[in-house]
C-alpha cells in the first residue's frame, strides 16, 4: 500500500450533506482537506469571550486541551486527574520558633487563623535584618535560663540565614483536613477531656510551660472573641510583659496596630507577643508544610541556680478558679439581629403571621422581616433586614415570601446559606438562594414543622429508653445529663 492520499468524493459528499443517513456530525470525525492534510474544525473549538467574540486558546496549556474537540475525551480526563502538588517547605533544624496559638473553633482553622499562620510564616522566613534583642529579652521575663538556650542555638550561624519554624498550638481535637497547606511546620496539640470545656487558666498554664521549653521568638494570637485575645493577655501577664494588640501590619521590625479603640494607628517596634487582626497578612498558599508533632525538648539538668527557676516554671501548677457551668439557653429574639446565626425572615408573601412566629419559636430562629412587612405593621422596625435596616451575618437565612429587593439582598450579602420560600420562581431571592422552595409558604412551613415535631418526639423516645437502660445497668445515671451538656457546650457556642 502506498502512503499516497486518495480523495474519497463520496465520503466528502456525505460529510457535507447533513441529511445523509451516514452523516456523522462535525468534529467527531477526523477532517481532511482536499490535499489530505488534517484540518482543525474551528467551528467546534474555542469559547465565547466576554464581548461576544469567539476566542481560541492556542497556548497549549493544560486547560486549552479541553477546548480542542479532537482531544477532548482524553484531555479533559487528564486535566481532572492532575492535581497541583505544592512544594514541601521543610525546616529540619530551626534556629528559632514562632509560636501561633490558633483559635481552632470546633477543631478547624478559621480564615483568621490562616492569616495569623501566614504572618508567622513571613516572620519565620524573612531575612533577619536587625535582631531586635530589646523585644526579645523583654519577653523572657523572670526566667534568665531561656535566653541562654536561644543564644546557643544561634552560635555559628550567619544571622542572615537563620530560619525559623512555625509552631501551631491546638487545644482539643483537630478536625481540619487541610492542615498541611496552612503553613504549620510543627504542631502541638493539647488533647483531653478538660479542653472541651472553658478553662483559660489550664490553657494559659500549658502555654506558659511550652513557652519556657521552646523559647519562641514571637508568640502570635488571633485578636478574636473566640479566646485568642483573652489567652494572649493572660500569657503576657504571666510572663510579665505586654502585648501589642490589634496588630494589622508587620513591616520588618515595625508593626502597626490600632489604638484608642480603633481611632489611631500606632507604629512601634515589633514585640514578643502580638494579637493580630484578621487580614494582617496573606495566608500561606504556595507551599505545603510538614505539620510534624513537636518533640518537646527535655528539661535541661540543673547546672546553675538560674536553671532551678526554669524547672520551677515548668513544674508550675495553677489553681483552677473558674468553673464552666455550660451554656445558657438564650431566647433567639433577644439576640441582636446583626450577630444572630439563624434568621427566619418574613415578607409580603406571608398570610399567616401567627404561624410564622410559631415556626420561628419552634425552629429556634431569630425573626427578621423585609421592609414591606415592617411598613405594613406586622413586624417592629428593629427587625428589618437589609441596607435600610440591619446588615445580617447569619449562617442560615430563610426568606419566607420575600422576593428580594436590592436593599434586602445587600443586607444578606454575608449570609452563608440562603433558603427561599416563595411562590414566584423567577424572583431575585430564588436566584440568590442555595435552595428554593416554590409554593405556598404556610403549607411548606407546616410540613417543615411536622418534620421537626417528628424528630423531637423520636429524640424524646430515645432519651427515655437510654434513661431506662442507665437505671438498669449503673448508678451513675445522675451524672450523664451534666456530662452531655459539657460536651455539647463548645458546639453550641459556635452554632
Amino acid at each position, binding site marked *: 500500500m502506498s502512503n499516497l492520499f486518495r480523495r474519497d468524493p463520496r465520503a466528502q459528499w456525505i460529510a457535507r450533506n447533513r441529511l445523509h443517513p451516514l452523516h456523522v456530525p462535525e468534529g467527531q470525525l477526523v477532517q481532511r482537506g482536499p490535499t489530505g492534510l488534517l484540518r482543525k474544525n474551528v467551528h467546534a473549538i474555542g469559547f465565547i469571550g466576554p464581548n461576544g467574540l469567539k476566542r481560541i486558546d492556542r497556548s497549549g496549556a493544560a*486547560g486549552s486541551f479541553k477546548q480542542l474537540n479532537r482531544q477532548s475525551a482524553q484531555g479533559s480526563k487528564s486535566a481532572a486527574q492532575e492535581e497541583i502538588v505544592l512544594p514541601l517547605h521543610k525546616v529540619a533544624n530551626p534556629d528559632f520558633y514562632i509560636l501561633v496559638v490558633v483559635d481552632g473553633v470546633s477543631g478547624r482553622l478559621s480564615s483568621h487563623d490562616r492569616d495569623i499562620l501566614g504572618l508567622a510564616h513571613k516572620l519565620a522566613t524573612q531575612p533577619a535584618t536587625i535582631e531586635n534583642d530589646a523585644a526579645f529579652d523583654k519577653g523572657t521575663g523572670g526566667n534568665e535560663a531561656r535566653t541562654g538556650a536561644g543564644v546557643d542555638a544561634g552560635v555559628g550561624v550567619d544571622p542572615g540565614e537563620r530560619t525559623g519554624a512555625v509552631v501551631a498550638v491546638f487545644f482539643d481535637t483537630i478536625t481540619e483536613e487541610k492542615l498541611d497547606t496552612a503553613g504549620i511546620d510543627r504542631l502541638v496539640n493539647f488533647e483531653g477531656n478538660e479542653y472541651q470545656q472553658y478553662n483559660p487558666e489550664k490553657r494559659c498554664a500549658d502555654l506558659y510551660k511550652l513557652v519556657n521549653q521552646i523559647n519562641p521568638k514571637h508568640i502570635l494570637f488571633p485578636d478574636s472573641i473566640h479566646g485568642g485575645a*483573652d489567652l494572649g493577655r493572660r500569657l503576657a501577664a504571666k510572663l510579665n510583659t505586654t502585648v501589642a494588640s490589634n496588630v494589622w501590619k508587620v513591616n520588618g521590625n515595625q508593626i502597626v496596630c490600632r489604638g484608642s479603640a480603633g481611632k489611631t494607628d500606632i507604629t512601634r517596634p515589633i514585640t514578643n507577643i502580638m494579637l493580630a487582626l484578621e487580614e494582617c497578612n496573606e495566608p500561606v498558599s504556595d507551599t505545603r508544610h510538614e505539620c510534624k508533632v513537636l518533640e518537646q525538648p527535655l528539661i535541661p539538668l540543673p547546672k546553675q541556680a538560674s536553671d532551678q527557676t526554669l524547672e520551677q516554671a515548668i513544674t508550675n501548677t495553677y489553681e483552677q478558679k473558674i468553673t464552666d457551668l455550660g451554656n445558657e439557653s438564650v431566647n433567639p429574639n433577644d439576640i441582636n439581629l446583626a450577630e444572630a446565626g439563624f434568621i427566619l425572615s418574613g415578607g409580603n408573601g406571608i398570610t399567616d403571621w401567627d404561624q410564622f412566629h410559631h415556626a420561628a419559636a419552634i425552629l429556634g430562629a431569630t425573626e427578621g422581616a423585609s421592609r414591606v412587612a415592617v411598613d405594613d405593621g406586622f413586624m417592629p422596625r428593629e427587625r428589618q433586614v437589609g441596607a435600610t435596616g440591619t446588615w445580617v451575618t447569619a449562617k442560615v437565612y430563610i426568606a419566607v415570601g420575600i422576593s428580594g429587593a436590592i436593599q434586602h439582598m445587600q443586607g444578606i450579602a454575608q449570609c452563608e446559606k440562603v433558603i427561599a420560600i416563595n411562590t414566584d420562581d423567577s424572583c431575585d431571592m430564588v436566584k440568590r438562594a442555595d435552595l428554593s422552595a*416554590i409554593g405556598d409558604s404556610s403549607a411548606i412551613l407546616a410540613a417543615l414543622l411536622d418534620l421537626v415535631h417528628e424528630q423531637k418526639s423520636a429524640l424524646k423516645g430515645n432519651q427515655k429508653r437510654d434513661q431506662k437502660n442507665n437505671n438498669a445497668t449503673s448508678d451513675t445515671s445522675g451524672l450523664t445529663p451534666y456530662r452531655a451538656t459539657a460536651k455539647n457546650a463548645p458546639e453550641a457556642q459556635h452554632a
Partner: protein
Amino acid sequence: MHKQTVEDNVNITVLVSVGEHPLSKRPRRAEQDARALEIGLNVPDTNLQVMHAGAANNVQTNTVLKDYLGMGLPEIKLLNIPHENDSLTALINTFDKNIPDILLTGIRAETGESSGMTPYVLSEKLGMALVPSITEILCINKTAGYAELLQALPRGQRRKISVKLPFVATVDMAAQAPRQSAFGAAMRGKITVIDTIAAHTDSAGSASISPDLTNCETLQAEWKITPAQPRPKRLKIIKAKTAADRFKAATAKAQGGAGKVIYNNQEAADAIFKILKDEKVL
C-alpha cells in the same frame, strides 16, 4: 476591709476611665466602664467603691467623673497620678492592702494604647481570678467564696461560669446599657483625691512590681501615633503562570452555581430540614 462583716457585705470596686467619643473626640463616660458600674450598682447589699487613676485637678477628668457620679454615687476615689504611666503601680499598691472581692473594669480603654492589659496585670499581681467579657452577675456567695457570672460569647450566646472570690471581671458591651447621668446627683457626689506619692514611699517593693512594664513605657516615646487610616481591602491574588491563565481568570464568569429549586411542598420541607441539620442550627 478584710474583716468578716456580719451582714456578709461584698466589696465591689469598679475601675472607671475617661472615654472619648469616636467622632467628636470629646471626653465622655467610657462605654464599657459605665456598663461595669451599672452592674455594680445593680448588685444589692454591697460596699461599692468607684475608683479612677489619673491626674487630679484636670477639668476634663472632673467633668467625666461627674458624669459617673450622676449615676447615683456618693463618692469617687481619684488616685492622683502625675504621669499617666504609673497608674498600674499605683493601683497595685492600693489594692495590695485591701483586695476587693470583685473588681470590675471595661475590656479596653478608649484612649491611649488600649491594649486591654490592665485587668490582666492586676489579676496576676494580686492573685485574683480573671473572667473576661461578662454581662451579668447572677449570684454572689461570700461565705462559700464563689460567684456565678454570665459571660458573653459570639453570636449572642451566653455561658454560665462559677468563679472563686476574689476575682477581676471585664464587662462586655452586651451587658445592660448604663443608666443616664443625672445632674443633681452629679452635683451631690464628691471626688476624693488620694495622693499616690505617699503610697509609693510606704511600700518599699513598689519599684520591683513591674520593671518590664515601666521599661515598656519609656519605649513609648519611639511610637508614632497617627489617625487611623482605612485598611486596604484584600484583593484576590491570581497566581497564573501563563498569559492564557491570566486571561481566563480575568474573563471567567463567577461560578454562581444556581441553587436547587423544588416545586413539591413535602420534598422542599425535607430538603430545608436537611440543610438545617447539616448546618447544626436545629
